[in-house]
């Protein structure tokens, strides 16, 4: 179990390391001709320091439970990802069907008729956007 400050610190350290280590793949340049790596490396170093301070600060605090619920965020992100995938490979109508069907699982109750109603409504909205407003939708 970790507390909030420690987790924040670890997150900062992780982000700093990802960007910092990867910056070595680009040219560093010199101070009168800075390359693409210099700036991100500097910022990563700063973030690393902040992360370390936060971890140290956190180790002095009491432990606490972080209320991180995975279910809904996974459902919502999966629904968006599948919307993009299905729209890309089939079309947006199929995308809307997939988006609403999956996303509705995160509501406290699930009703098929409600899902169908929303899908029909949103498809109508999508058509209106395409033909009334000229939005270039892959329907």
């Amino acid at each position: 179990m970790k507390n909030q400050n420690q987790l924040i610190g670890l997150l900062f350290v992780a982000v700093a390391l990802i960007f910092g280590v990867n910056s070595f793949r680009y040219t560093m340049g010199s101070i009168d001709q800075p390359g693409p790596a210099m700036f991100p490396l500097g910022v990563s170093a700063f973030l690393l320091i902040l992360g370390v301070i936060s971890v140290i600060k956190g180790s002095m605090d009491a432990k606490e439970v972080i209320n991180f619920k995975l279910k809904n965020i996974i459902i919502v992100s999966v629904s968006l990802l599948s919307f993009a995938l299905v729209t890309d490979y089939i079309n947006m109508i199929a995308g809307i069907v997939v988006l609403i069907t999956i996303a509705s699982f995160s509501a406290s109750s699930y009703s098929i008729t409600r899902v169908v109603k929303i899908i029909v409504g949103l498809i109508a909205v999508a058509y209106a956007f395409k033909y009334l407003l000229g939005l270039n939708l892959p329907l």
Partner: protein
Amino acid sequence: MIDILNHLAMGFGHALSLQNLMYCALGCFIGTLIGLLPGLGPISTISLLLPLTYSMPTTGAIIMLAGIYYGAQYGDSVSAITMKIPHASSIIACIDGYQMHLKGKTGLALFTAGVSSFIGGTVAAIVVAGFAPALGEMAFLFGPAEYCMLMLLGFVCVSLITTGSLLGGLGMVSIGVLLGMIGTDVNSGVMRYTMGLPFLADGVGIVSIAIGCFGLAEIVSNLDKKNEQTPFTGTIKLMPTWAEFKRIIPSALRGSIVGSFLGLLPGGGPTIAQYGAYAVDKKFSKYRDEMGTGSIEGVAGQAAADEAAARTSFIPLMSIGIPENAVMALMLGALMMKGITPGPQMIDRHPEMFWGLIASMWIGNVFLLILNVPLVRFWLSVFKIPYSVLFTCILFFCCLGTFSTNNNIEDIYTTAVFGIIGYTFLKLGLEAAPLMLGFILGPMLEENFRREMTISRGDFSPFWTQPISAVMLAIIGLFVAYSLYRFLRKLTNKSI
């Protein structure tokens, strides 16, 4: 002075015809409607509706575009206040605006946003009318060294826009800066941190981050709480009390001044102005302790700055022909399609156009105030549906908004990923507003820093030998010293 009034009278003469007023009303109306949808901000709204103006007479078309622009901007702050789903220019409205909404003061927040943007628009219109030709030159005074300092000043202000810990705020700014590094490096053309994905070559879209970190994170957190109530219950009370109204004015005026200035700088515009105004209010407002918990000032200042900056960002476009942000580039396109090339000669050659534009922008503002602000409660009644239905619709509009920015379906992947990231931040008590600040300012800081280093051959002295830069450096120094002093005093007080 008489000259300016004459010119303005001519402008209003051109703009005020029944037909033009109709165009303006129509533009405001459609703009608000589209801007209201989460994720669809001014850029997508203008590009969507641009074709509507093809067949119109020039003045009418521009008036309509101005109407669309203001409508979209207002609609955008409505979605930020009521759903916490911002676009680039309404990020700050998510802080206090959304808090006001949660406290049941939705109507007051929407009214404040409307009135403040009117005030901001009016102040900026005066600035534009009085000083446009002279102010155009101001952009030239800002070289890379000055820009570096301006960006750093922005970062230093981060402590003013965070309500949480300074450490967390600084960390979030840094993460924002790093996220801004993703994409093609403008100086060398090298692809950085794109993981070989072609759609990241242009960088991560600000819309994806905004929708992900604010909107999606908020939706999921509502779902977690089994918060099934609709955000719009009952009637919405728009009119403030006199005491509330009195609080709007000073904050809106401060915001207008900050916005008018920041709007002049290329690369600046509304996105940065809102942060500036919030920081200024947090420092100088009488009610600064309430900010962050749903205060009127937190909405009024940023809305006024947003509007003022949107207005003054026309100055570089009109006087030197340089569009300073994506919206201005679209406006430039629209003007050129009508056969007007903005530039130094525009004010001389097409005075009726220039002054007509200023007049029509103001008319657009008036329309917004008298037509849309009262109407907005009817728009919101559309949302009086259960949250279990509403959130799926919002998700769809978020997808649509992300997609329509670049007509790129792959941006939705980015949005989904930022939803997860944003939710993690929310659960850790980290705020997304400083992240956005870093994301916006970071790339500009890098570009200008590298430019300055190349020009000065690695010499740092221009930062303190050039007057404007030196002044800003001094302000930064004072600010840091003051923060350090307060920090140390707090520390010693604690130990006693």
